[in-house]
């Protein structure tokens, strides 16, 4: 176990949480992420082995699924992002690559992203101020790629609320935009 201490995307030791009006914005550094892309012509094999080896249902466009420890969402043709609890799966990419085998390419994505979870009744109004996706109609189990404050982000809808994932190096800018929008709709 390394003695090097991680910091969150916002640069602190602990995640930042703000409640403004009817929405709570929580920095969430506790997820591991890996991309999963099928090798040429291996889409069926990947779906099968994902199901048998990991219990993972790989969703279609615009969808996300939760299967056991893993959440997967569609990111492109034959391409998904998978996330899991960081404490349990710090080596998520290696774990998935091992389980799926040579029919897929798996790449560690954990620290490529920052993640902010939005909860509360103000979440939809907040996102309406920031991204062109049709957020009010999103249902738990839906995920989309969209732009927030010029940044390419994922917006994922779950029963808990929404999660916004953006490029980690711009975590401060994305967080600032979320906070401003929260005040706007408070």
């Amino acid at each position, binding site marked *: *176990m*390394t*003695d*090097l*201490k*991680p*910091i*969150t*995307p916002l*640069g602190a030791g602990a995640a930042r949480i703000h409640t403004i009006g009817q929405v709570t914005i929580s920095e969430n*550094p506790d997820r591991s992420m890996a*991309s999963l*892309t099928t*090798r*040429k*012509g291996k889409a069926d094999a990947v779906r099968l082995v994902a199901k048998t080896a990991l219990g993972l249902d790989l969703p279609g466009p615009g969808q996300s699924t939760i299967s056991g420890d893993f959440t997967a969402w569609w990111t492109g043709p034959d*391409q998904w992002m998978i996330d899991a609890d960081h404490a349990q799966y710090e*080596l998520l990419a290696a774990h998935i690559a091992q389980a799926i085998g*040579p029919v897929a*390419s798996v*790449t*560690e*994505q*954990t*620290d*490529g*992203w920052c993640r902010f979870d939005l909860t509360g009744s103000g979440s939809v109004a907040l996102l*309406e*101020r*920031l*991204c*062109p*996706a*049709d957020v*009010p*109609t999103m249902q738990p189990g839906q995920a989309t790629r969209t732009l927030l*404050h*010029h*940044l390419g982000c994922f917006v994922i809808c779950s029963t808990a609320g929404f999660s916004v994932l953006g*490029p*980690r*190096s*711009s*975590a*401060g*800018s*994305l967080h*600032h*935009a979320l906070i*401003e*929008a929260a*005040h*706007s709709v*408070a």
Partner: protein
Amino acid sequence: MSINRLTGGLIDHASPLQFTFDGKTFEGRKGDTLASALLANDVRLMGRSFKYHRPRGVLSAGSEEPNALVELRSGARREPNTRATTVELFDGLTADSQNRLGSLKFDALGVNDVFHRFFAAGFYYKTFMWPKAFWEKLYEPMIRHAAGLGSISLQDDPDVYDKGFLHCDLLVVGAGPAGLAAALTAGRAGARVILAEEDFLLGGRLIADTGTLTDMSGADWVGTAQAELATMDNVRIMPRTTVVGAYDHGVYGAVERISDHLAVPEDGKPRQVFWRIYSKRALVCAGAIERPIAFENNDRPGVMLAGAVRAYANRWAATPAPSVVVFTNNDDGHRTAADLVAKGVSVPTIVDTRDTAPDMQGTEVLAGAQIADTKGRLGVKSVTVKLINGQTRVIPCGAVAVSGGWNPNLGLTCHQRGRPVWSEKILSFVPGGDLPQGQSVAGAANGETSTHSALASGAQGAVDALESIGLTAQAGDLPAAEDRPVSVSPFWYVQGAKRAWVDFQNDVTVKDIKLSHQEGFRSVEHLKRYTTLGMATDQGKTANLTGLAVMAELTGKTIPETGTTIFRPPYTPVAMGALAGRSVGKAFHPTRLTPSHHWAAEQGAEFVEVGNWLRAQYFPRPGETHWRQAVDREVLATRSSVGVCDVTTLGKIDVQGADAAAFLNKIYANGFAKLAVGKVRYGLMLREDGIAYDDGTAARLAEDHFVVTTTTANAVPVYRNMEFARQCLWPDLDVQLISTTEAWAQYAVAGPNARKLLQKIVDPEFDITNDAFPFMACGEITVGGGLRARLFRISFSGELAFEIAVPTRYGDALIRRLMDEGQEFDLTPYGTEALGVMRIEKGHATGAELNGTTTALNLGMGRMVSKKKDCIGNTLSERDGLNTADALALVGLKPKGDGQIMTGSHLMAASGPVDAAHDQGYVTSAAYSPILESSIGLAFVKNGSNRLGETMRAVNPLEGGELLVELVSAHFVDPEGGRLRD
């Protein structure tokens, strides 16, 4: 309160509001606009005209207002050219009239009106010709000062603005009878509806007129409809929201004024939101705008549109004067007279241009008569009426309510160049066939002028629009409402009038249009440019049709033959702040921070913007007074011991798949197929046209796994190009790509002690000695007790160097650990400046050399372009023109003696002319080398590689100066590369 405040209306008589106009305090009522409150206070004079500085009052009761423009608020919030008719009154509001010199009542520039003969349309094209130089310096500033509108505060806008995004099945623009009927119809059918209304109250003419809907007043019916809509989750009612533009694919722009009715926005709240509305269908129910009739001195304060006078009386309980003469060519003018009389306002006379004007009980109707002139310096005191028998009569009055008929509000229907078509029924243009995709029109905006027809067409419009997207709706029962036929006669202006205003905002008269015709500017577009008719903030909403009618008469053509004018977005003026949204100041674009940013900031680093990244430029130490001192120190420390630099910003692309090597072999100009696992290779990418594009490295982590690095600037374009190549050029290859730029924190550790330092950090089971981990090796290792990491033996500085990468969350800890462990080696952090100095000393190219015009041959890397394989750009790199004997080649430069080489200088022979014809090359990079204790540079010189030792002049004609320089090898430091391999 003034005699001009009536009873009733939709204002709250129990809620007084204080406001000031030109410093004088007045009292209005909640529900007033600034215009209605001023009228109620007997203020008719609200501004001065654009060119002649004539006294002007309010003309309309809506956003089409050309005259009553004021500077609203004060200080940094001052907003010029605000239409008093759309300003919702609030307590403490301050407004000032604009475009005056002195007071509003005694405007010194009113002298312009006395000399109006010299200020006819186009006067400045003819008058201010000589001397030529005076135009820019004297005449134009003078004219601009004298003519014009309000002035801006010149301070930063203290308010914030949001952007936002909405989606709907049906966007209903306007909440008058048609819009409300449409929203109810679509809402009841379960469709997602947005109902946007620019006013702060819904209802449109229903709350301005007195008719009933079945057994309810218009206002009551609107209240019922609004209450029903408010219960529907699928309907979003947006008052104070102006739809300003119709764009492609059903996208509309709309400005919602969140806080404009407040003195100051609430904490954290935006002043306005600029919404982008994605609609499947849009129904424009934007109503109609009344047009004036032009007659002599028809611009005096108190001369107003009849429908507006009626609206002020009915909705705002205000009248411009106790006595109002009506001038009309249609039946609607008579409605105004009837409503005013019902409100207790005196209407001495209705002047109707039609010989067959209808009678009105209790009010004199002068059929076949016209208003020949008005009197009153700062407001109408009387009108001179020319009777049907040719006699004239003077009638005292305080206002004139003019109705020339109603023009459909075409704005949004024209935004994609849709041409309206002429309707003989209403003597106006109605929306034509070429509407924006998914748009339809209902109500008065479509020429349906009665309340009944507006309701019916709105409901049916919603049914039809929804049906076209597969939704079923029922028009339902509509309330009974008036269904009067249109009765209007063509009457545009009073013959013989000299100064009869057509466009109030631009001071364009009938005479100006005649002059335009006389001088040959007869097409509509020429008329507009010559006279400025239809320009400025109101886009000629009340003027365009009358202007066309006058021109049609002069040319002997019909109005539709004469032409149409169409409208561009925005429908009404939009604050620049609303267009900018939150992208202002430091939030103009997102900022990217490196993993070591917080640590570097603690060290007092100076940062530099590199794209969106902030990178440490140098790390000044106490006592250093100039950036060069820090940079020189960082270079010397690195070359003598060890330095560390955050290089995370370089693009990283993960390339996997059975054909990954074959793919890279096509992407790079040099070969990659045979790169061994555990090795890195420098790679050069070309554009399709053979010009050098980007350089970097590719590390082979496994047979089917590479990590490609790109320059910081090209991280995104290279990834995009590779993705294009993968999907489109070679879709049969088994290769997968994903960016990992941000996932790994990467540091360059360079200098003779680099290995010794890293050996303290890399876990002991990994051997990084020169034998085990030689130059250009790479591998997956662990550091700091088991943390996964990647190590690359690559060097940009020319020293023994490594790049080490860890997951980004550990980047902060790693730089701190390196600094701690590096104390014994005097480890020195270095920034982009020292990085640049060292790469110039080493002769490494960057974007300054890969500048979009240079080839591999120019860069001295011609032999890297493999002839044995196909790759992007190799064919066109063989073009004759790129391979001449005297092609530019990269060389080093040293000054002869003292002197500083300047980037951008051009190289000329040591003697001879200095001009473009004798240009032999240019300097791409320059720096002071603390190792050589001299200025050095890199340059492209014709046939340069064969001219080392030659003396040339580096000339800088832009800033002056020239310098004798010697052409030398570009590799100033360690040309054999021994240090890299130590």
